[in-house]
């Protein structure tokens, strides 16, 4: 009798569930996965090298393009590294704005995740519901920075500018008119903080809506409970962070353990799972959305009461105002120097990490005293997570691999860097 051979299947890089450019070589025994071999590198852009060949202040935009669904969190790690080396600290209002936008980013990321994970498992509706809310938050990105995704809003020394006093409104068009237009602009009558206030008041109801479709759904539970179990020991051994770690029951969160920005002053909880399966990680992320919502509300409250500068006034690091440049010779010189050669950073090295939505995103930076970093190493959470793929999906079925890719929340921008 002829020997039965397992067969190899190429899952991606062009596959509806491959989340970007993941190429997964699966050795299959019928429907059961015997070995999974994730291949990476198809989106490698050499971000670290690019950052090493540019002045410190010109690489913030690259950070947006790493994890392109949690843009500002990556920026945050980078600007904090530069600030650490420079020995400066952003004004407290900027810290609150950063905290608020980190949490907006977390909701953005988790909305993307809940949508795509549900879509991978066949539930289409959640995806489109999640994008409806994402659109509102994207507008916040656009309102502060002019860009919906790649914001470059955080700068070493603060944030680019203060929050707008008027939230941009929809204009009448053949698609949005009459009552529809009024509904869309209902929250946008006041400032951006008013808008966020209205959004966060409504958002828990929207999360209930997603949960209505998924949490109690028998099919959803059958597809996720007991699938891709990561034990706490494994999670430690694989260097997992973020919801992957918390889903296994370890309450580790940099926002609590090593508070940065304004996290020490806001009140929030760390949700943890118990079984470490896909379902627990789903619950953790949903709970995190609610917690983020809480943090945003507190930040909105604080920011309303405390006006002030949002960026340092040190023109050796921060570009001067345009008006100043028209009259003041020195301002013009500062501007010219900053935008041609940047600034020199004292020699030294530092590691700055933030709790990005996917886990610990860290920037390790060495400066040799020049205007460019000597070395930049980016620690992407997704890379550590993806490397555990083989061990976790072995013995699962093909459909579970899809569930697992979804629960890793892989984004290739950060994995390939």
């Amino acid at each position, binding site marked *: 009798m002829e020997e039965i051979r397992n*067969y190899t*299947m190429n899952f991606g890089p062009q*596959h*509806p*569930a491959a989340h970007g450019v993941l190429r997964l070589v699966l050795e299959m025994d*019928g*429907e059961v996965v015997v070995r999974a071999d994730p291949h990476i590198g198809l989106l490698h852009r050499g971000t670290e090298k690019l950052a090493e060949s540019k002045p410190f202040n010109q690489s913030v935009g690259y950070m947006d393009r790493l994890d392109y669904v949690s843009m500002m969190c990556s920026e945050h790690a980078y600007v904090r590294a530069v600030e650490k080396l420079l020995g400066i600290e952003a004004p407290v209002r900027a810290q609150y704005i950063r905290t608020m936008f980190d949490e907006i980013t977390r909701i953005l990321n988790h909305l993307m995740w809940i949508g795509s994970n*549900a*879509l*991978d*498992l*066949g*539930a*289409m*509706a959640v995806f*489109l*519901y999640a994008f*409806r809310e994402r659109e509102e938050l994207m507008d916040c990105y656009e309102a502060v920075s002019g860009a919906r995704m790649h914001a470059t809003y955080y700068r070493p020394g603060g944030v680019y500018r203060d929050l707008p006093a008027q939230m941009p409104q929809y204009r009448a068009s053949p698609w949005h008119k009459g009552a529809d237009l009024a509904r869309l602009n209902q929250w946008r009558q006041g400032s951006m903080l008013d808008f966020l206030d209205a959004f966060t008041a409504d958002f828990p109801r929207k999360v209930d809506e997603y949960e209505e*479709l*998924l949490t109690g*759904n028998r*099919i*959803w539970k*059958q*597809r996720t409970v007991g699938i891709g179990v990561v034990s706490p020991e494994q999670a430690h051994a694989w260097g997992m962070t973020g919801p992957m770690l918390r889903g296994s029951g370890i309450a580790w969160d940099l926002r609590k353990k090593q508070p940065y920005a304004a996290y020490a002053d806001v009140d929030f909880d760390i949700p943890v799972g118990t079984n470490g399966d896909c379902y627990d990680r789903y619950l953790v992320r949903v709970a995190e959305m609610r917690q983020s919502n809480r943090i945003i509300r507190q930040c909105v409250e604080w920011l309303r009461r405390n006006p002030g500068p949002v960026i340092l006034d040190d023109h050796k690091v921060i570009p001067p105002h345009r008006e100043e440049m028209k009259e003041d010779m020195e301002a013009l010189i500062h501007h010219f120097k900053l935008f041609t050669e940047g600034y020199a950073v004292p020699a030294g090295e530092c590691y700055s990490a933030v709790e990005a939505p996917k886990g610990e995103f860290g920037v390790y930076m060495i400066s040799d005293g020049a205007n460019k970093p000597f070395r930049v190493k980016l620690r992407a959470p997704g890379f550590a997570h993806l490397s555990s793929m083989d061990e976790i999906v072995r013995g699962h*079925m*093909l*459909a*579970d691999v*899809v569930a697992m890719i979804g629960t890793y929340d892989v984004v290739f921008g950060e994995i390939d860097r």
Partner: protein
Amino acid sequence: MLAELLLVLWTLAKVLAIVLPLVIAVAMFVYWERKVIGWMHVRMGPNQIGPLGLMQAFADVVKLLLKEIVVPTNANRFLFFLAPMLALVPALAAWAVIPFSDGLVLANINAGVLYLLAMTSMGVYGIILAGWASNSRYALLGAMRSAAQVVSYELAMGLALVCVLVLAGSLNLSDIVTAQSGGLLHWFWLPLLPMAVVYFISGVAETNRAPFDVAEGESEIVAGFHVEYSGSAFALFFLAEYANMILVAFLTSILFLGGWLSPFPATWGLIGHGSFFWLLAKAFVVAFLFLWFRASFPRYRYDQIMRLGWKVFIPIALVWVLVAGLLKYFHIVAPGA
């Protein structure tokens, strides 16, 4: 000789009178599906081609017909082209025995239910052959899944039909409908409620629709058995799937919801009388459920579908065959007029 020729022509005309509206119904159903799912997803659905996007389905047909059919290099060409036809022909042929109204049926045969079972089971050969002949691993997995799934649900479906046969005392679909006459409470959904549910869900599984669409399993095996098909060959699969869906909707209405019979008493004039429109309305509601499922449910895993079929549906169906027998034996449910 002339008489025979006329008979053949007359039969052909009747066949066309069923197939053409069916194909148009499929086109409109696809449009309706996209619209309904669009509304459920807070988006608009097709709205560009024709008024309200009504011509969208026809534009899609034209697009598909004009496209090249790409045949994979190592595919078995004969089977590759045979497969879509094998899928479509039974899907259309099954309509021969559907009674649209009292006496309005192409072939009023006494073994109508058996014929239907035979035809709906044939469709899976098209899927298996398509998966095998395209020489693609995704397609092969899809074919494998589909074969296992259809075989298991065929059983539950068959047992549900047995219950109907026991109560109606006939294999003729027209007789099954007349056996239900007497009003809403005489229809078979009431004594056979679990079976009506089992039959409909098995129908959803047989037609490979969400949440049982593992044979296509978009996010797992891309498009499953028809991943290598394009152009008009793909269109045939598409047509077969939707024709089957509408067929299941019609059958559920005929077997459990009193077919063309009206739920209102005959004294109510026009709406009190049974007509084709009643059947259409019932089938429309049932078909809507297909879309509703698709818009809201996640997809089952392949082994979970097997478990549902074998460990839940078949035991229920077996028990209910007994219940149906008892109902009949003790004259609790007697066929109407």
